[in-house]
């Protein structure tokens, strides 16, 4: 109760700490959620209809991978294979849009893109995702100076696919000078996956075959995104920590007399420290709830921002929320540790010296 009253007594400084924690926590929430969202979307794209992924050997990113699609005919003859499809994932300026995702897919995978208008693309044609179609009003568009006719529009469950363009694999192969970026194989029985990985691996020395699950776990881009997210979150954590420490130091300095009174009354150093920790914890928890609500609002808005074309999507899991809560509590306790320590050391003699005659 003392802690609550003390917070109410110093509304300006309490608000400063509250704001500093809110901004730091929100930054952690957003960076974690957006990076999780990007990873989630790409993982979903790879996992859809695919248990096994074939990429070029020794390539760090599917953007640079080139896999000969001719091996698909051999793969399709294997008894445990249900189906396979090839895909080219690229990026290119599209009309006035500086960069957009270009997806070249085998015709048997077109069904993944739900047509809302028109028909699936033939040679020299493309279909547009819902988001990008809002920015292109003509029937023709240029990709890498080559004109394509728009044959239809599509929707997708994966946010960033809606900001892209889908064409057939052959056209994409010409555009990006490759046969395919990767081939995805769907198996009839899940327990046949590992055996099939071994079998497909023997088809060529230039390919790398993995289950989509292990590919996602080992994919360098995801690791880079996760590490970048961790670094930025850590910086936000440190900023919050420094904010709490500096403002709490100001608060402690302005309340020295109060701590001196407590010490003179026989209150222990632990009592003073506990009260200051409690004050910071109250503010931190309120800031956490506020930041969580704001972040959820922002994350819900992101997919509807036309400029982002669905590329930035957030996914806020319970685990992330819990991890951020623990981080917030740590931030509060660490940030107030030094000021609380200094406050607890306040010498009550200062009360006598102030009134010394």
């Amino acid at each position, binding site marked *: *109760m*003392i802690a609550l*009253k*003390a917070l*109410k*007594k110093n509304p300006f400084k309490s608000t400063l700490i509250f704001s500093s924690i809110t901004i730091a926590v929100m930054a952690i929430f957003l960076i974690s959620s957006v990076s999780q969202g990007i990873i989630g979307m790409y993982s979903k794209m790879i996992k859809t209809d695919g248990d096994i992924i074939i990429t070029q050997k020794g390539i760090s990113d599917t953007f640079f991978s080139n896999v000969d699609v001719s091996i698909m005919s051999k793969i399709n003859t294997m008894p445990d294979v249900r189906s396979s499809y090839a895909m080219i994932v690229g990026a290119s300026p599209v009309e006035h849009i500086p960069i957009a995702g270009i997806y070249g897919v085998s015709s048997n995978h077109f069904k993944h893109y739900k047509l809302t208008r028109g028909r699936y693309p033939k040679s020299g044609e493309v279909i547009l995702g819902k988001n990008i179609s809002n920015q292109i009003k003509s029937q023709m568009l240029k990709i890498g100076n080559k004109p394509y006719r728009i044959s239809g529009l599509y929707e997708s469950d994966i946010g960033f696919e809606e900001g892209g363009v889908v064409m057939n694999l052959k056209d994409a192969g010409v555009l990006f000078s490759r046969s395919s970026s990767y081939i995805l194989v769907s198996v009839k029985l899940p327990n046949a996956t590992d055996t099939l990985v071994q079998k497909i691996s023997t088809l060529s020395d230039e390919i790398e075959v993995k289950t989509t699950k292990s590919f996602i776990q080992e994919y360098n881009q995801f690791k880079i995104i996760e590490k970048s997210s961790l670094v930025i979150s850590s910086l936000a954590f440190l900023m919050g920590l420094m904010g709490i420490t500096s403002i709490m130091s100001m608060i402690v300095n302005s309340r020295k*007399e*109060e701590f*001196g*009174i*407590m*010490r*003179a*009354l*026989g*209150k*222990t*150093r632990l009592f003073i420290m506990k009260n200051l920790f409690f004050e910071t914890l109250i503010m931190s928890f309120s800031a956490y709830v506020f930041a969580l609500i704001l972040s959820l609002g922002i994350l819900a808005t992101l997919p509807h921002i036309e400029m982002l074309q669905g590329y930035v999507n957030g996914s806020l899991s319970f685990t992330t929320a819990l991890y951020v809560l623990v981080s917030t509590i740590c931030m509060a306790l660490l940030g107030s540790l030094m000021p609380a320590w200094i406050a607890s050391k306040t*010498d*009550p*003699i200062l*009360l*006598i*010296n*102030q*009134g*010394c*005659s």
Partner: protein
Amino acid sequence: MIKVSNLSHFYGAEQVLFDVSFEIKEGEFIFLSGDSGSGKSTLLSILSTLLKPSSGELLLANSRVEDIKNIDVFRQENIGFVFQFHYLINYLSVYENIALAAIDSKKPKIEKLLQDLGISSLSSRYPNEISGGQRQRVALARALINEPKIIFADEPTGSLDSANSKIVYELLANALKNGTTVVVASHDMHTQNYATKTLKMLDGRI
């Protein structure tokens, strides 16, 4: 109750107390007088365990201060303090200020104490809502709540008019009747009217 032997204290290189020795018996009202800079406040700070002396020995309630394990608990249970300025915590009500000082077993007695001191109507008021004299009475209530063995008061009437000063002294005298030893450091010569013994300080000596 209090035994001081060869107490000296330095602030840096400057010596402010010189081999001070005296004894205060239980139930005495001590008037510690002296000019500004004579060492009254320093001696009071040492006696009330707020300041550690540079040398010498101090016995409080038959315990050597150096041997007391938890000085904070000892201070809370045995010593009451009244400062020149009331030093009430301004975001806590009168009741809460006293409750902050009270050990758990004494908390039920707060209302009764406020009644005894004639300030029960102020219980829910905040320090900035009451007069200077009332604040000092609250400060006195806070010092008395744990029924301490000793009350130290440093210029308790320094910021009060004569009417309020009289009230404060009468309350201290009342505490004395209840067996509390009272030590008051003051410039106010009226203190002498209530004191059972006067210790005059001059240049750090008694």
